[in-house]
């Protein structure tokens, strides 16, 4: 039985696609057959972040409309075994998504032996975001430690609790919070919301804290999910998050100000 995980946030630009790419890669690297689907019809960027934008022949909407089958649309990742990407359409719009069409594709993927299906949601609370979260078993709500992002994440948690299929059937979606672009120094100075502030407002299990890191932009431009960059703090934090998702108890790193050693201060190594 495939586990369907939606990566959502409400607010735009907080790191959903980065997270979808990193987590799906992390799961595949640990041996699980994983598919990651881009639900951002018309504004797709999962394909860019995963370096397959030049290999898109058929997309999500083609499969829903029966213009192609799933095998033809799924793109096998070149770097990681077990990982497949289903890109969004760039020319259509979100009205092409239907509950029946999305359900059919998710069932087909499950029958095909996929263990994890990551749904990369677009920003907002409209049709595209709703389709991405409707069938989810697990939700990773991505938020920046910043007031408008936290408010929007609260809104999307409310929608998950009332409008998802699980909610309609009287069950609950397993909710996790992922804090991204965290900057411990700024938290200490009082310029940024801290982990405990966000936890108090959202009252949701913390999956991980991803520190602000220059490696993320680099990874995005190179089309290499940041989890491959095992030296960067962000890459390591994502790896920890994947372990927690798989049930391991991993202490949170990169949450407190790192005391720089003498050599680090001399040579100013950036994360």
């Amino acid at each position, binding site marked *: 039985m495939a586990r369907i995980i939606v990566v959502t946030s409400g607010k735009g630009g907080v790191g959903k696609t980065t997270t979808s790419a990193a987590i799906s890669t992390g799961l595949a690297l640990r041996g699980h057959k994983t598919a990651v689907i881009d639900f951002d019809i018309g504004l797709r960027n999962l394909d860019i972040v995963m370096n397959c934008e030049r290999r898109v022949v058929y997309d999500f909407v083609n499969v829903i409309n029966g213009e192609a089958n799933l095998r033809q649309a799924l793109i096998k990742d070149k770097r990681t075994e077990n990982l497949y990407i289903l890109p969004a359409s760039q020319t259509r719009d979100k009205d092409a998504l239907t*509950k029946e069409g999305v359900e059919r594709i998710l069932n087909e993927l499950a029958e095909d032996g996929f263990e994890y299906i990551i749904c990369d949601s677009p920003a907002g609370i409209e049709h595209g975001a709703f389709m991405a979260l409707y069938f989810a078993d697990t939700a990773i709500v991505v938020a920046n430690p910043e007031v408008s992002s936290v*408010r929007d994440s*609260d*809104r999307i*948690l*409310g*929608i998950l*609790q*009332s*409008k998802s299929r699980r909610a*309609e059937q009287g069950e609950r979606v397993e909710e996790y919070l992922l804090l991204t672009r965290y900057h411990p120094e700024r938290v200490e100075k009082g310029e940024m919301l801290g982990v405990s502030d966000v936890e*108090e*407002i959202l*009252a949701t299990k913390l999956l991980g804290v991803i520190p602000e890191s220059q490696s993320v932009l680099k990874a995005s431009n190179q089309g290499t999910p940041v989890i491959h960059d095992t030296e960067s703090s962000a890459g390591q934090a994502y790896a920890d998050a994947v372990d927690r998702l798989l049930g391991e108890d991993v202490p949170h790193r990169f949450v407190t100000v790192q005391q720089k050693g003498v050599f680090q201060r001399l040579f100013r190594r950036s994360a």
Partner: protein
Amino acid sequence: MTLTSNAAAADTPHPASFVLKGGLFPLTLLEITRYDRTEFERDLQNKVAEAPAFFQQAPVVLSFDTFHEEAGAVPLPELQALCREYGLIPVALRSADEALQAQARAEGLPLMAAGRGKTAPNPPSAQAPEEERQGAAEEETHPHSPSRLVTTPVRSGQQVYAPGGDLIVLSSVSAGAEILADGNIHIYGAMRGRALAGVLGDTTARIFCQSLEAELISIAGSFKLDEDLRGEHWKQPVQVHLDGESLIISPLA
């Protein structure tokens, strides 16, 4: 602002041409204390001059809760026509007076539940029968409902309403969320959103919370906003009750 979900509607093979849903709409009350045709028209003219923008087809509920005499003698069609002439559209009637209710039925005007608590001072001779009628009206319009219990946080954008009773929230209420009750509201957590107690007019309703961080609190229509709440009781465990027209905030023991 819907109170019921229509999730099943999408799965029916032959969708009906309409769905019945609950809705909550803030409405203005025209609280009428006395009626004399010339005076009423003059008062309307003065109000229009004060706030012309409001009198553009504004829906109002005609309320006779504070009417000084026998409300049944009021010529309802004449009053309605006057209101319409000046841009107020009566959409419902609120009165315990049966004769007036009968007029309303004849006019096709729906009846709203009588408000509790707010009664004008009556001449002593009329006091006893007035109270009896008020009590009877209360019983038929407010059948006992159990309190509504919410155990999970109330998220931004959600609205929770407890009709006919109290609302108890065992977690926090987020900013951007709205909770309403006909009775009291108890929040065993932080109150960061909007809380409206006694929404049908119960002035004895109270609000209790463990941490006052609200955007708005209201009892029977009297409200205070965030800026008025940021005093010595901000983020403290408090209870709020209505004294006359003002909300009093006191610490919880």
